[in-house]
């Protein structure tokens, strides 16, 4: 799963690189349009188009019946009932294409989250680093240290939380760059990337030991070997919002709206009944 996720990441990085320096809304628009088209195609071939059309026609007919027979309470109640029941049927018809769409869109969203979800650290900003360890006995006595390259400084001694097998540090950044910090535990060394930049970049929030979901959701770095005493290293980048027409909006909302817009706008071209 990690290999697949990494390959997608590679393609995605190439794609994003072509938008280097532009406002994120441009790349977002193109991704949304491409996703809209992809989803339409998946929807077309995985849904029961004839049945969807029938259900939608039935809903519309009942909707019009309420308006046409406006003096009849009987029509009002029965048609409203029909519409609600047909809506459930409609949603059920949407479940199959939905299941087919979850996988590609899920993988894509994971990638997008690293680009659009967080911003790199800026010089002078404080960083929280969290390492989760395997069973190392008494955590308070365990030998745990952090080594940082030039350009980054350690601001606090390690804060150990034995209940969570967790060790935290606060770091400070001095200048832009791609860094690798090193954690030493019981004679082992484990690294984690750290990005200080004022541009949009792909960020890896977590380096983790092998695991299906983590492999799927955090594909940015090599997997920590299972023999390691470190289970994961996490860097707390700040979430970022996208500026759209003077509003700060979470990127997923922008993506959601734009991809649906493109999907709906192009459904006639691809002759898809949604």
């Amino acid at each position, binding site marked *: 799963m990690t290999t697949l996720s990494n390959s997608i990441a590679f393609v995605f990085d190439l794609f994003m690189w072509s938008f280097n320096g532009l406002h994120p809304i441009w790349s977002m628009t193109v991704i949304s349009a491409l*996703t809209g088209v992809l989803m339409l195609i998946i929807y077309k071939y995985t849904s029961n188009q004839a049945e969807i059309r029938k259900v939608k026609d039935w809903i519309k007919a009942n909707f*019009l019946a309420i308006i046409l027979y406006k*003096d009849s309470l009987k029509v*009002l109640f029965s048609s409203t009932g029909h519409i609600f029941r047909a809506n459930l049927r*409609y949603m059920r018809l949407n479940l199959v294409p939905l299941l087919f769409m979850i996988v590609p869109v899920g993988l894509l*969203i994971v990638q997008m989250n690293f680009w659009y979800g967080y911003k790199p650290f800026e010089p002078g900003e404080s960083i929280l680093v969290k390492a989760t360890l395997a069973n190392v006995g008494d955590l308070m006595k365990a030998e745990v240290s952090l080594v940082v390259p030039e350009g980054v400084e350690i601001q606090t001694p390690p804060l150990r939380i034995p209940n969570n097998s967790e060790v935290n540090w606060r770091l400070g950044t001095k200048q832009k760059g791609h860094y690798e910090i090193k954690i030493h535990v019981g004679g082992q060394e484990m690294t984690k990337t750290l990005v200080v930049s004022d541009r949009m970049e792909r960020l890896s929030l977590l380096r983790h030991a092998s695991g299906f979901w983590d492999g799927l959701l955090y594909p940015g770095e090599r997997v920590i070997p299972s023999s390691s005493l470190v289970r994961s290293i996490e860097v707390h980048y700040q979430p970022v919002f996208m500026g759209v027409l003077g509003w700060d909006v979470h990127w997923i909302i922008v993506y959601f709206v734009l991809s*649906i817009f493109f999907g709906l706008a192009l459904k006639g071209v691809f002759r898809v009944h949604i």
Partner: protein
Amino acid sequence: MTKLQKKTIWLVLAIIFFTCKEAFAYIGPGAGFAFISSFFFLIATFFVALFSLLIWPIRFLVTWMRRRKVLARASAKRLVIVGLDGLDPDLVQGLMDKGKMPNFTKLAQQGSFQKLGTSCPALSPVAWSSFMTGCNPARHNIYDFLSRDPQTYLPTLSSAHIGPSKRTLKVGKYAIPLGKPSIKLLRKSKPFWRVLGEHGIFSTVIRVPITFPPERFNGLLLSGMCVPDLRGSQGTFSFYSSREAAEGETTGGIRIAVKKQSNVVRGHLVGPPNSISQRNEDLSIPFEISLSGEKARVVLPDQSFELKKGQYSPWIRLSFKAGLKITVQGIARFMITETGQEFNMYVSPIHIDPGKPAFAISHPRAYALYLSKLLGPYATLGLAEDTWALNEEIINDQAFLDQVYLNHAEREKMLFDALEKNRNGLVVCVFDTTDRIQHMFFRYLNPHHPALKDKDRTEHAGAIEDLYRRMDNLIGRIKERLGDGDEFIVMSDHGFKDFSRGVNINSWLWSNGYMVLKEGGCEGMWLSNVDWSRTRAYAIGLTGIYLNFKGREAHGIVEPGQEEAALKAEIIAKLSGLKDDGNGSGVAINRVWDRSEIYRGGPYQKNAPDMIVGYNEGYRASWDCAQGRVTNEVFEDNIKAWSGDHCVDPAMVPGVLFTSFKLNRDSPRIIDIAPTALALLGTGIPAYMEGKSLIAN
């Protein structure tokens, strides 16, 4: 998987769906499509339902205020009228006597069964106009299918005038119409459902002839007879054939030659004229058909579908691109009729798509749309059954019957939907099935019919009896849906008679010196070779004769007054009792009426033909006469499948009237139905109606 397991899976999926907010994000646009559509429907439904509910008490109060007087007088809560166009009382009686019409018999026993006096002339547009207005033609202005333009002597459709949009914008090769085409209803007076509407009574009116263009009133109406097809004609089929010399026009349709190479046929589907192009060209859609035995796959640019020889496709939606992103939408049925060495395919006239009508075919416009969402596409053409395709032997008897019954099934669904939803007012539905099948299959009731010469007389010999029994069955199913307080009328506008011989009145007028032809003699349609400066009388339509009247016709020569009266009297005397020498000197014309005898007291009397011909049973205006051709022969055999007709002396073709209630007298007339309906539903009968109520006070 058991039902419980399935339900559990759905439940779990639903819980995940609605509880996990990340799921919403992670499923992205896929879910978005579904949710957005779904929420749109739900929210729109919620608001419309809420709004309807909130204003319902106000509407109820207003309607009640308007209806309270009529409610007190009404003897029916709902009136259902089913029109079976052309159902003949003698045929019904014959089958009732044999015990083959149990539902009609029951209805007659419960209420009444009588012959219904029809209009003069006994033509559907005239009779149904009289039905809905309660008036004679002098008050509703419909005297025939055709009227004529006295300036050009050309025939015109009597019921509606469809003109192009008044203004156009010319851009390059296009002339874009600004505004809608002008469509004007030429039927005058007021249908009784408008009177009901004025008293707050709601009506659903389905496919009553001469309701196009639809008029505004308190109710729903789907237009019937005379709604044009997408070409603006009354129905033009197209026929695609690989045979040589197939190209050209045929009566009622267009023949198009196609190339068949091995098992693939390619061609262009002919559509309506391009109304925005300044060049005179038809729109078309390319098609490719792959044949495999008796099966075929038809591929159009945006869709493909399977066909089996001898079977109709469902309605296929066709989009013709006119340019400038303008598309014209229609629906048609396809049928492959030959797949061996040669290839033949029939495509029905392209009906206006009720889902996207080019102009209003219903009131309100949404009613046609509602029906199309409810039932799928349905026939909208006024004369939807393609009689000319059978006349021209493009399709066979069975294919024609299949087509008619497909249309009939749609109509039944419309009626049953109206019966379910409109429980408190008027429901009227007219079925054309009875008229069309009798027109085309009456030959089987007459073993000597010229159209059956050298043809199989047995296969469809029972078509008409089968038709009547189906109608009886329909009546039974309708009755099951009626309740207390419902009254029921089953009626026809006229009966039916054999049509074996045609009479060409224009040929008779010519041979008797009332009409003079220019040099060249008998050539051309629509009286194109008539010398109007020397002609005194001419016939246009199926029963009308006009005088070439000075001051009225463009080149009129007949002086009003004495000359007019003498000429009329002369023609009437000569034509009444006219004998057919070619048919054992049988009487071809029973009588001819002066219009002043039959049309009195109406403002449109002057639009009537000057004389009306009442043919004898077995006769009708010949095909040549109907098309305005002057021929050497006055009489001719009718060898077309169209072998039954009713354009005869109205006394010979009364309709039927079955009612669920007792009538107050005998000899009801078609103009009595409207006042009867008003009386049953409790409104007064307006002064302009000439009919009288048939219910006892």
